[in-house]
Structure formats: structure tokens, C-alpha cells
């Protein structure tokens, strides 16, 4: 257990405090503040006219939309996989468990490259899907698919520990009290799983909002259609429209920070009955 120790007893307080504050400021605070200031230099009205253009709105809507859909899908898939990994034993279980982390370890560019090549008309999967009308590459669907990949581990990893901690005895008690397996699942297990699924959803969602590397491979990046917000920022940069880029970045930051707060509140809420 960590105990607050008098600074005089253990050495290094000033040294580490100074270094940490310096590092954080130089690397994180100052750059972020610079971004906000740059955006602010537009003035309030101009700021809104820049971040609220039809093109920008389309980008936010798309970013939000695809992240949301991908996170929903991941919630379902993640719950299934987490449940199976925790409650059943089967050959290769450990391997499958380790594979869940691949999207976190794999560079996003590789993910984008692979997904793009898989879903084009002559790709491994595209050759079956395109004829039946499912265009995975260069479409919004493609963005959703690749975001499902990058966000997949989150729900699995938030649900697993909660599921693993559930008492067998609680389920036995429910059975003895007369509940069918379905009733036990609905009334006893599911309520315990809602908090981690929600937390995992929020994490996957947050990840999707910022994702860039994988998306640009698979998206056609057409304005109003398949341009996500980060792509919009980059194109503003390439046009040397720094203030505009900063403004949109600030919008994205605001969305992410809000999500961060929500995630923390969710985690606290999950612990309320512990």
C-alpha cells in the first residue's frame, strides 16, 4: 500500500517534480495550449464559421457515425468473445486470448493496408463480397470495418476481468431459487456486465474518433462522403491553413476530452456496488 511519505524522508521530490512538470509542459501542455491559442486567434465568429462549414460538419458526422457504429459492433463481438474466453475451456483458448491484443500492437498503417487489399474486388474477401454488393474498400463501410478491427480489444478486455470475478455461487444461488439459465443470465449476469460493456464501448469509440493511419488507406477520402475529421485537418495543413486546422483540431480535442470524462464517470459508476 502506498503511503504518503514525508518529502524529507525519501529523496528526490524536487528533482522529479521539476523534471516531470518541465517534461509535461514542454511536450504536452505548451503544444496543446499553442493549438488552442492558434485557434483562438481566429476570433469567436471566425472560429465558428471555420469549424462549422458544411464540409467540416460532414466530417464530424462521418467521424462520429463510423466510430459509433464500429463501437456498437465491437460491443457485441467483444461480449461474445469475452464470455467464451472466460467461461469455456477449449483448444487454443490461450492463443485466441493472445490474438485479441493484435489490433493494439499492430501499426495502424499495416491495418489500413491489409484491410484495403482484402476488400478490393480482387482481394481475398472482396472477391466474394463485391459481387453481392458489399464494397468494403473506398467506402464508408470500409472505414467502419477497419475501425472495428482497431477497436476490437477494448470491450473484450474490459468485460473479461468482470466476468472472471463473478462468483459461481451467485449463479448456483439463482438456480436454486428457481431461475432458468435464461433468467439467471438476464437478471443476475447481464446487470453486472452492463458497466464494463459501456466502458469498453466508450473506449472503442474514443479510439475511433482519432484514428487516422488505418482509415486513409481504406477510405477514398472524398469530401462530404468519406472524409473523416483528422483527414480534414491534414488537408487544411497541406493548404497552409494553420488556423483553420487548429480550429478543427480544437473541436476534436473537445470531443475526446468529453469522452475521457465520461469514461472516468463510467468507471466510477461500475464500482458503485463493489
Amino acid at each position, binding site marked *: 500500500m502506498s503511503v504518503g511519505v514525508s518529502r524529507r524522508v525519501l529523496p528526490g521530490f524536487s528533482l522529479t517534480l521539476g523534471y516531470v512538470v518541465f517534461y509535461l509542459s514542454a511536450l504536452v501542455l505548451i503544444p496543446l495550449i499553442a493549438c488552442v491559442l492558434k485557434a483562438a486567434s481566429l476570433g469567436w465568429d471566425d472560429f465558428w464559421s471555420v469549424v462549422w462549414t458544411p464540409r467540416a460538419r460532414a466530417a464530424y458526422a462521418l467521424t462520429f457515425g463510423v466510430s459509433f457504429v464500429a463501437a456498437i459492433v465491437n460491443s457485441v463481438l467483444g461480449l461474445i468473445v469475452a464470455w467464451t474466453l472466460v467461461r469455456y475451456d477449449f483448444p487454443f483458448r490461450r492463443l485466441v486470448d493472445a490474438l485479441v491484443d493484435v489490433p493494439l500492437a499492430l501499426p495502424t498503417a499495416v491495418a489500413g493496408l491489409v484491410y484495403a487489399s482484402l476488400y478490393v474486388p480482387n482481394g481475398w474477401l472482396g472477391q466474394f463480397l463485391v459481387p453481392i454488393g458489399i464494397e468494403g474498400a473506398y467506402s464508408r463501410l470500409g472505414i467502419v470495418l477497419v475501425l472495428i478491427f482497431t477497436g476490437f480489444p477494448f470491450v473484450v478486455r474490459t468485460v473479461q476481468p468482470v466476468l472472471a470475478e463473478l462468483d459461481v455461487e451467485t449463479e448456483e*444461488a439463482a*438456480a436454486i431459487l428457481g431461475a432458468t439459465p435464461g433468467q439467471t443470465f438476464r437478471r*443476475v449476469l447481464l446487470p453486472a456486465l452492463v458497466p464494463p460493456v459501456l466502458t469498453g464501448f466508450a473506449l472503442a469509440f474514443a479510439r475511433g474518433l482519432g484514428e487516422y493511419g488505418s482509415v486513409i488507406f481504406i477510405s477514398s477520402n472524398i469530401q462530404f462522403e468519406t472524409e473523416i475529421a483528422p483527414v480534414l485537418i491534414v488537408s487544411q495543413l497541406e493548404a497552409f491553413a494553420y488556423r483553420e486546422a487548429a480550429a478543427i483540431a480544437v473541436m476534436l480535442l473537445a470531443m475526446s476530452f468529453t469522452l475521457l470524462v465520461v469514461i472516468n464517470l463510467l468507471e466510477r459508476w461500475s464500482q458503485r456496488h463493489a
Partner: protein
Amino acid sequence: MSIVIQNVSKRFGSFTALQDVSIKVPEGELVALLGPSGSGKTTLLRIVAGLEAADCGTVQFGTDDITNQNPRDRNIGFVFQHYALFRHMTVFENVAFGLRVRKWANADVQARVMELLSLVKLDILAQRYPSQLSGGQRQRVALARALASSPRVLLLDEPFGALDAKVRAELRQWLRRLHDEYPVTTLFVTHDQEEAFEVSDRVAVMNAGKVEQFDTPDAVFESPASAFVLDFLGNVNVFHGRVQDGKAHVGEIVFDCPGPENQTFGAAKVYVRPHDLDISVEPSEGASLQVRVTHLRPAGSVTRVVAVSIDGQKEIRVDLPIGRSRELAIRKGDVVFVHPRRAHVFAPDYAI
């Protein structure tokens, strides 16, 4: 509703948990399954509950053979050592659970749950969550939950094991009083001898998958059926001797043995309870053992004396009533004489 267990056996891999166990729990009685860990008591309880399946044998409630019924259909109540309360439900909803899954009407649920909560004196805490309750309170909720649907049989698995000593003692008495008022046939598992004796009408002492003795607490204590039972229940001094002509000889001391007068066999063990030994300053009639006192300790209404035989080989424990120990005024280091008033003699395989 009585519980009739007949010839139940159970093995887990190569480990035999239960061997041909048969017990009848009379209707309305509170019976304890008492034994050390590994004795099979929890396995037996779980088989009665339906959480495990016996390899062979039958279990009946009254005249219903429920051996192959699954737990949900048996209409029993079960209380777990670690409560197994539903964490995200209030106390009220926990107790109501068994009623709700049976689709009781709301008004009926309300009435029954509040009835039970006042029975266990937790009605004011009905809207709290388990995390806000103490261990003793949680266990009472668990009990109320188990009783809610009027089960025909109540099963408790070391219900007070997770509680601290004082709460344990309180809840024990409370359970006994509850049972006196509402006599549901109850079977409970414990490794605590005091608990079994205080609470139950009858005790089944179990060891290594078998029932060594099934009788009232008094009978089990005073007339233990085997060396194990005697040894398990309370402290006991063990002497090695032999039986000859119907009497057991330990050194110079001769004990009467019940049984035919001309019995003779070799080694036997003589068990004497600490409170069945008396101490005197002079050697008494009949042989007695000379010992030196090494330890004296007051313990409630007795003085616990630990002594070592003069040849240093044997440690002997004696419980002297306080009055007697004051009368004798012995001290550490004194040499005194110990003689038994009563003893149980067991040959290796059976009691005499």
C-alpha cells in the same frame, strides 16, 4: 419433510468424497454435518441440493425421490458461506428474487418479502445494497432469501464461516431460535464442533467420506462410536495399553472395560477426557500416574493443567473445576498424581 439419503457415493477422479452414506434427517429437525475438511460433508450437502450428482444412491424428500431432479425444481433453500447475494440488487430485490422468477404478483411479493425481512430484523435496510451491509447482516439477508419461497428443506454450507467470532456466536443462537419458531427441516455443514452442538438436534460426524456416528450431541459426546469421533470432539488424552481379562491396562492403571469379562487382545488405546481426570497430592486408591505440573492456565470455569509424566514421556492435560484447583493449590513444578474417573477404550478397529 424429512430428508432420506441412502447409499450415496461420490468420487472425483481418484478421490473418493463419499462412500455409501445413509442418513435420515427427521422432519423439522436441524441436523449438523460435522467433520474436518475433506470429510465429504460439503459434497453431501451439495448432492442434496442438486449442485452435484451422486454416482449412486438416492436422495428423497419425504417420499419423493429427487435424486435426478435439477436444483431449480427441488424447492429448497440454500445459504452459502460467502452469502452469494446479488450485488447489484437491493436487499428487497435479493429476497424477492425467488418469488419474481416464479412470477408472483407484485403485491404478494411485497407482503412476503417484508414479512421475511422483519423476521430477520432487517426491514429498515430493505433498500440498501449488499455492499453497504455487514457480514452478519448479509448472511441474514441470504437466509431470508432462501426462506422466501417456503422451501421444504433448508441447506446451509458453513453459513457462519466467513464471520468473526462474536458475530458467529450471536448468529448461531439466532438461527436456533429461528428454527424453534419455524421448524423447516434443516441440514447444515460445519467444521466447528461447538457450533454443531449448540445449534443442532442431531449431529452426523463425518470422516473421509463416511458417517462415523449419527446421534444427538449428548450421545455423540458421551458415547462416541469410534476413536475418530472421540478425538475430533474436544481435547483428549490418549494412552497406549493392552486389554487383558476384560480390563485395560495402561502401565499400572487398570480401567474397567465394558464388554465380556474374558476379553483379551493386544494393543488398545485408552482415551480419557481432560475433565475426566482428577488430581490428588497423594497417590489414590487404584493406580494413578505420577506427573509433574508444567503449566497452569485459568480458562473460564476450569483450570487447564498441563503435566508431564515423571519419566518425561507423556504429556497429560487435565481440566480441573476452579473450586478443586483452589482446594489443591497446586503450582507449576509440583509433583502430583493423576487418576482417571472414566475412560473410553478402543481397539484399532472397533470400540469396546
